[in-house]
């Protein structure tokens, strides 16, 4: 069915036949050896995004004061990366992603996509540039009057391709997103996941270097979300498309992003590789987003019984964050054996971020052993990050 995301891989060559002169693509790849931090998508070339001190202020309207949607945002997204922007509603993430394809013009600053300063282009040049930047949406934004095939064909019609060229290309795109059998269906007859697949096919129609995802999975159930994210990851890996996505769900970031930026009140308040931000969040906002993942909260059965005062307590509750190598070690049993203590497993999550093993554990250790410092020293030595959550009488 539609979830066959691991099914046949698609050779990038499939996508090199579009209007964008193939020779030019070759030149770019040659002219820029080693650019892009050695990511595998270098061969595809282009797609790097740079934002320099971007500000966007919406002027005052009537009794409403002016709104500073973006305040001095600088980003450097190399070609072939999946960059996630996470923030609450109103934080400015929609405005941010819209500056990249010029749907919003920044009040000041520069937006450079694939070497082109987008915010300085006139309307005609901007339209041409937008064909190199695909976009998908939370509510899919498919034309109800067009079949799946005709929806994917739309950007190609706009670009003035011949009927025959459109036909072969759209059929391949529908095949790529696993919807070949739905080509003549109208949006009303498709499920949410299928609609987003049509949206992705449409966004890829003009062979873009960059794909913008505006909360593309927020209207989908968890299982469909995973299959759509898997498709995006595949598009990134096999076609080398740079992806910028905005979301309010940490699960989305964890699933496919290489790097993440946390946005609040129009500023990027924290940024880094996803595993790094997960393991050592520096801001409360980042912590609360990470905390919203399943298995991240303090178990409910425990939360009510915790006290801050260790006096007279029997058990101390610790939160251990383990990443990479540390997460794969037999840490708990070794600790129990070496210190001769019993360790209770109270809750947590063992997982991976990208390919990196990651664990977050709530454990209970005897308060006496914790107070002596022995447990803390052993955990530090093993490379775990330890926080005391409280004590249980």
């Amino acid at each position, binding site marked *: 069915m539609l979830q066959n995301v691991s099914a046949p891989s698609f050779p990038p060559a499939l996508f090199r036949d579009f209007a964008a002169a193939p020779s030019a693509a070759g030149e770019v790849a040659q002219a820029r050896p080693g650019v892009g931090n050695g990511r595998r998508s270098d061969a595809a070339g282009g797609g790097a995004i740079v934002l320099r001190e971007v500000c966007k202020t919406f002027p005052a309207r009537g009794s409403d004061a002016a709104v500073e949607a973006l305040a001095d945002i600088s980003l450097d997204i190399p070609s072939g990366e999946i960059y996630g922007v996470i923030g609450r509603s109103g934080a400015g993430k929609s405005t941010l992603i819209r500056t990249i394809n010029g749907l919003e013009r920044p009040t000041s600053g520069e937006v450079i996509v694939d070497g082109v300063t987008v915010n300085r282009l006139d309307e005609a040049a901007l339209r041409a540039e937008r064909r190199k930047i695909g976009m998908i*949406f939370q509510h899919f934004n498919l034309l109800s*009057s067009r079949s799946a095939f005709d929806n994917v064909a739309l950007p190609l019609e*706009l670009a003035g391709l011949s009927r025959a060229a459109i036909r072969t290309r759209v059929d391949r795109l529908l095949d790529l997103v696993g919807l070949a059998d739905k080509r003549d269906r109208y949006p009303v007859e498709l499920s949410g996941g299928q609609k987003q697949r049509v949206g992705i096919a449409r966004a890829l129609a003009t062979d873009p270097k960059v794909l913008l995802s505006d909360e593309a999975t927020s209207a989908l159930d968890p299982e469909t979300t995973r299959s759509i994210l898997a498709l995006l990851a595949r598009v990134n890996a096999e076609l080398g498309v740079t992806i910028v996505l905005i979301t309010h769900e940490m699960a989305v970031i964890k699933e496919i992003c290489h790097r993440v930026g946390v946005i609040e009140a129009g500023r990027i308040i924290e940024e880094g590789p996803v595993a790094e931000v997960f393991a050592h969040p520096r801001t409360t906002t980042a912590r609360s987003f990470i905390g919203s993942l399943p298995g991240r909260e303090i178990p409910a059965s425990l939360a009510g019984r915790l006290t801050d005062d260790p006096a007279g307590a029997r058990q101390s509750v610790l939160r251990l964050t383990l990443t990479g190598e540390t997460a794969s070690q037999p840490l708990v049993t070794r600790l129990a054996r070496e210190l001769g203590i019993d360790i209770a497993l109270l809750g947590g999550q063992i997982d991976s971020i990208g390919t990196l093993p990651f664990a977050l554990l709530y454990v209970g250790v005897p308060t006496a052993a914790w107070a002596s410092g022995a447990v803390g020293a052993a955990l530090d030595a093993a490379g775990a990050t330890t926080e005391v959550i409280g004590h249980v009488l």
Partner: protein
Amino acid sequence: MFSDLISPAILSLIVDSTLETLYMVAIAALIGTLAGLPLGIFLATSGKGELFEAVTVNRVLGLVVNATRSTPFIILVVAIIPFTRLVAGTSIGTTAAIVPLSLAATPFIARIVEAAVREVDQGLVEASLAMGATPLQIVRKVLIPEALPGLVLGVTLSVVSLLSNSAMVGAVGGGGLGDLGIRYGYQRFMPEVMLMVVVVLIVLVQTVQSFGETLAKKVNRRLRRH
């Protein structure tokens, strides 16, 4: 019994009047649609921050449309007689009557088109802009096809309202069913003629309405069909 009441002469009057009505309404609906469609699309897309932003023009056109629509049709017919003479060469007769009918239909259709176009999800406009579409491409490929069911119903509605307006153009010798009903049915006191006129009008309205609804359903891709 009916054939006793209605002489062949009256029957042929009814047939002629029906043809006159159809002629006036068809041409006026055509002209009204041709003028009202672009006007309505412009009204729907020229507000602040929209595709063809032109706030002042939008406001002025809106005022003109409202003024035309608030003028009672019978007054409009008389008031524009000089204009009618300019356009049709005469101010009397069926062809001349097409001028005020079209003039009244245009703003009516424009407002209906405006409402239908405004119903189109703004997300679709944003998506097309993101694809690099020009404003005219958005109108042609997105707004009109997506608003089509509403447009068809709107034109249907205006044809029905044209049928009712056409009854008033007897005032300038426009002929048609309404005129026949007034002159024979009312002034000459022939209720059977009045009845026939009403029956024919009911049949016409019913036919137009059913046809419009069927067509609107056919072009509406938001409905599931099996």
